């Protein structure tokens, strides 16, 4: 397999006043087409910053993000982001929120009827077609996040970036959404990068887990492949030895070798 997305020696530092704080140092990672990669680390390790760098929302200090061998340094719909707090526009209905993205990305290439079908197909994909006329304030947190995923998918991105997409949800809703994301990933084969701090979530969803060391100047500590066959079922996996081994490896990394020291901040 060839490299689809390449993070090439990325450094990121923020300058505030006269002080420069180095957040990320020498990030090197290659992601293949169709792969599902999770980035896990303690809070403050810069994993969200890394996602913003890939999305182009934050400028890289040194190094480059290469998508299909082309450098990308500004945001674009081919790297769609699902934000942690859904970021739906509250004055638009669910349908209109997705339409905003679809008419911008496919305004020229698809006819009006095709765009409508495309919006409905993506809403179907996240099982939200029934709420297309509702406003974000009228649906639950989990539903909002589903719509956020539909909006990102509707841009037909080359890479789907998930920024702690289930962080703000309760455990049951989170499990439902994880299943939905697994289902979508298996149907569309979308290349996905997910930021998370949930070990089970990372092992359940990922092909590879990228583990970050603690900041400042965080970097990739280890990359763990998850050799579990798909489709994966959470109940069967609960006693699966490979699953448990992967889970243990991540836990060991996070809590033994790179314990989070709050005083380090």
């Amino acid at each position, binding site marked *: 397999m060839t490299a689809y997305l390449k993070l090439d020696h990325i450094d990121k530092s923020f300058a505030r006043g006269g002080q420069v704080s180095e957040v990320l140092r020498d990030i090197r990672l290659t992601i293949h087409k169709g792969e599902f990669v999770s980035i896990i680390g303690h809070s403050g390790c810069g994993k969200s910053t890394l996602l913003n760098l890939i999305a182009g929302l934050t400028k890289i200090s040194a190094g480059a993000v290469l998508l299909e061998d082309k450098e990308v340094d500004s*945001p674009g719909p081919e790297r769609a982001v699902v*934000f942690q*707090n859904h*970021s739906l*526009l509250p*004055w638009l209905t669910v349908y209109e929120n997705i339409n*905003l*993205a679809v008419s911008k*990305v496919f305004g020229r290439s698809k006819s009006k009827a095709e765009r409508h079908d495309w919006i409905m197909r993506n809403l179907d994909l996240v099982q939200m077609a029934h709420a297309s006329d509702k406003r974000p*304030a009228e649906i639950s947190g989990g539903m909002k996040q589903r719509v956020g995923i539909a909006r990102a998918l509707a841009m037909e991105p080359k890479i789907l970036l998930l920024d702690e997409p289930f962080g703000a949800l309760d455990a049951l809703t989170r499990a439902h959404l994880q299943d939905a994301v697994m289902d979508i990933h298996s149907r569309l084969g979308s290349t996905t990068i997910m930021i998370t701090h949930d070990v089970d979530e990372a092992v359940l969803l990922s092909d590879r887990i990228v583990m970050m060391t603690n900041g400042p100047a965080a970097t990739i500590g280890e990359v763990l492949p998850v050799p579990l066959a798909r489709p994966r079922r959470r109940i069967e996996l609960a006693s699966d030895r490979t699953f448990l081994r992967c889970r243990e490896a991540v836990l060991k990394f996070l809590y033994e070798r790179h314990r989070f020291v709050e005083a380090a901040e």
Partner: protein
Amino acid sequence: MSIQAIEDTKVKAFPAKPAEVVAFTAKTRRRIDLVSIAGKVASALVPPAIVIALLLVVWQVACSSPTASLPPPSQVWNEAYDLIAHPFFDNGPQDIGLAWRVLISLQRVAIGFGMAAVVGVALGALVGQSVWAMRGLDPVFQILRTVPPLAWLPLSLAAFRDSNPSALFVIFITSIWPVIINTAVGVRNIPQDYRNVARILRLNQLEFFVKIMVPAAAPYIFTGLRIGIGLSWLAIVAAEMLTGGVGIGFFIWDAWNSSRLPDIIVALAYIGVTGFCLDRLVAAVGAFVTRGTTAK
């Protein structure tokens, strides 16, 4: 935890039955609603009616002595009866009912305030978007906004050399500041998430303005518009002192010059009620337009 969940569903399942019972009592409920609505209307109308009646009595007593400098309500009623009873009479070009005069003034305010709204939102967007425009322009705005409408008169006359555009300018310049300032605050408060969505979609400046900025800042914009329309109506008397003609503002100026105090008092009431209606109108439009924005 699973037991908790089962209990929750049970509790939720129960209220389905009593709903039918409620449906049967719909008629009695509606009657009760009518009574309660009447009660609400009464509680809203009775206190102001009592206060107005009391004020009229006090006013009548205070101005009844022969040496009083202002007319009492009874004299206003008698001498200005035509103006009160017939708002829409039309006896030739200069002798028309106060409602016509209000409409003409409203037209003037509509033009002046309309321009202020458009320019104010555009300038406010600029000031809200750019830190440097903010730093440079905000102090200027804060000072200019305190200048009273009358003070703009000589300048605008000198600049335009014509009474009509000067009058519109006075309305414009009086009402634009709160629109600018509130829009700027609204734009500055647009959540970073919405900006990120716009950046990922690569919305251009115009699309961002129309699709994100205006709706996101709409509650602030309407607060500004509401204050602005109040101010523009305040400026109408000053503006029409310039233009003459048939507006309600000039009517007051004219009545003062011919010592018709009762007419002035009636005109004041007209202006007050109209201003109140304008305020409520903008507030209602704002509430309708921003119904989606305020709820998160």
